């Protein structure tokens, strides 16, 4: 939530360098404090256990939670919810089908971050859906991972998918495999897999950094259909250039709900859309306020995180 609120306090003086150079989301947060917001932080009462300067985050979080819960309840009651089409996800089944026809494996990479990152969790969730499809068609699946905790979670999710599809015998523990802990050693190993095994479909879902283009370009050279999804803005151009379909930012988090079509999960997506509308309104009000030098309190409210 701090990350979300800190977006508002990005200083106009901050050059694009800090955006382009940042390879981790933390950089956005760290560099996001304008001199004004530092001043607000400096005014914080040190004797207080509660960080009152973060009350704006608390209010925003409360509204956000309420909207999500209301839409989840609506979805639960059977209300029809419209979710816009995501071409990349519609193609997942098609891409697995292609791999089945060609008799080649599907390569899935749940990012290169640890399991404590929400992008990795999103990647693991999508892996569960993809594993169901590969289990259904009995298509070989390869999932190289960079962290042992992701390995354990991935194995659990894939095994569960094979069981639920009634194919427990087709499950092999080595579908999800730990390959390397180093970023570029991981990229080199995966590139080797791509060139040797020639997977028909490559799916990248999660947090990617400098290795994104190394992976996507190699997959492109190997002639694979490629579907990528990441919330790292700096890596999106690389995936767009080298992959057939790319999920941008929030679409990664929506992917699992979209693939599963479970009303409870779709309700959350709808709530998210309403929050975006609220943010757009707030941004427009902020633009007007900053341009005309009015509503100083309104701008100040969003600066203190």
């Amino acid at each position, binding site marked *: 939530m701090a990350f979300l609120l800190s977006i508002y306090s990005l200083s106009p003086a901050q050059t694009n360098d800090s955006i382009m150079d940042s390879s981790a989301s933390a950089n956005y947060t760290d560099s996001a404090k304008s001199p004004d917001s530092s001043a607000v932080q400096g005014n914080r009462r040190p004797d207080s256990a509660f960080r009152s300067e973060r009350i704006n985050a608390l209010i925003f979080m409360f509204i956000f939670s309420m909207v999500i819960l209301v839409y989840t309840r609506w979805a639960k009651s059977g209300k029809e919810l419209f979710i816009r089409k995501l071409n990349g996800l519609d193609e997942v089944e098609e891409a697995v089908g292609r791999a089945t026809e060609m008799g080649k494996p599907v390569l899935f990479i749940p990012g290169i971050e640890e399991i404590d990152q929400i992008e990795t969790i999103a990647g693991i969730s999508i892996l*569960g859906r993809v594993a169901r499809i590969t289990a259904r068609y009995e298509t070989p699946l390869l999932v190289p991972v960079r962290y042992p905790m992701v390995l354990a979670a991935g194995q659990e999710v894939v095994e569960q998918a094979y069981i639920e599809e009634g194919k427990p015998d087709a499950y092999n523990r080595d579908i999800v495999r730990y390959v390397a802990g180093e970023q570029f050693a991981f990229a*080199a190993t995966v590139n080797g897999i791509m060139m040797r095994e020639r997977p028909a479909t490559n799916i990248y879902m999660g947090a990617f950094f400098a290795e994104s283009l190394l992976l996507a370009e190699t997959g492109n050279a190997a002639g694979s259909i490629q579907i990528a999804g990441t919330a790292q803005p700096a890596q999106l151009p690389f995936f767009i250039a080298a992959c057939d379909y790319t999920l941008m930012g929030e679409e990664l*988090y929506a992917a699992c709900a979209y693939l599963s079509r479970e009303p409870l999960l779709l309700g959350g997506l709808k709530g998210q859309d309403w929050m975006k509308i609220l943010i757009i309104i707030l941004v427009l009000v902020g633009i007007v306020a900053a341009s005309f030098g009015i509503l100083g309190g309104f701008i100040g409210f969003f600066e203190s995180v």
Partner: protein
Amino acid sequence: MKTTVPIITAFLSGLVMLLVFFFNPEKSAIGRLEPEVLSWVTIVGGFTLLLGVVSIVRVNYGAVKRRKEGWKYKIATLISVFAMAVPAVISPRVSPLFGTAPGSIYDWLFNNLDAPMMSTMFAMLSFYIASAAFRAFRARNAEATLLLLTAVTVMLWRIPMGEIMLVKIHHSLPEIINSYIMNGANMAVQRGIIIGAALGAAAMSLRIMLGIERTYMGK
């Protein structure tokens, strides 16, 4: 049980991290919980490291045994795993060659093999960027042509010689590119993506905390 325990754990962990954000670590016990929880993550991660070693040995040993394509490389992988790990875990009290301190086997292997190989991989990125840019910057239609022109302008601005050329056209051209393309259009789009992604992440976290989203458990 297999579902309830993870959901309760996820809820409590999420709640702790959420509360920590609103409390001062110097003034409240809740605020001090963050490093505690993060230490647990490190400890659990340490135990799972063994899983990683088992996985890498299983996969590569199996490939060598079955003489799969490229099995010789798998031998190199297995040797590398143990050559790096074994000297590093032996106490330096046995010999200064052990452990991870400067002068140890691990340190030598890291500086003379691992680091140069990582640098090589990173350096290769420039060639990959060139080939990706070649495909992306083809003037197929009006939008692609606009992208091509913008990319060429930004690339010119980014290199010293290009900047000199731009200044000769108009003294404030680099400033205009910086203001309108990079700090204007580019940053606005990036912020839009970041806001959307942050909302998506927050919504997913909430769904996990409340047990609505169970897909990360394969449910």
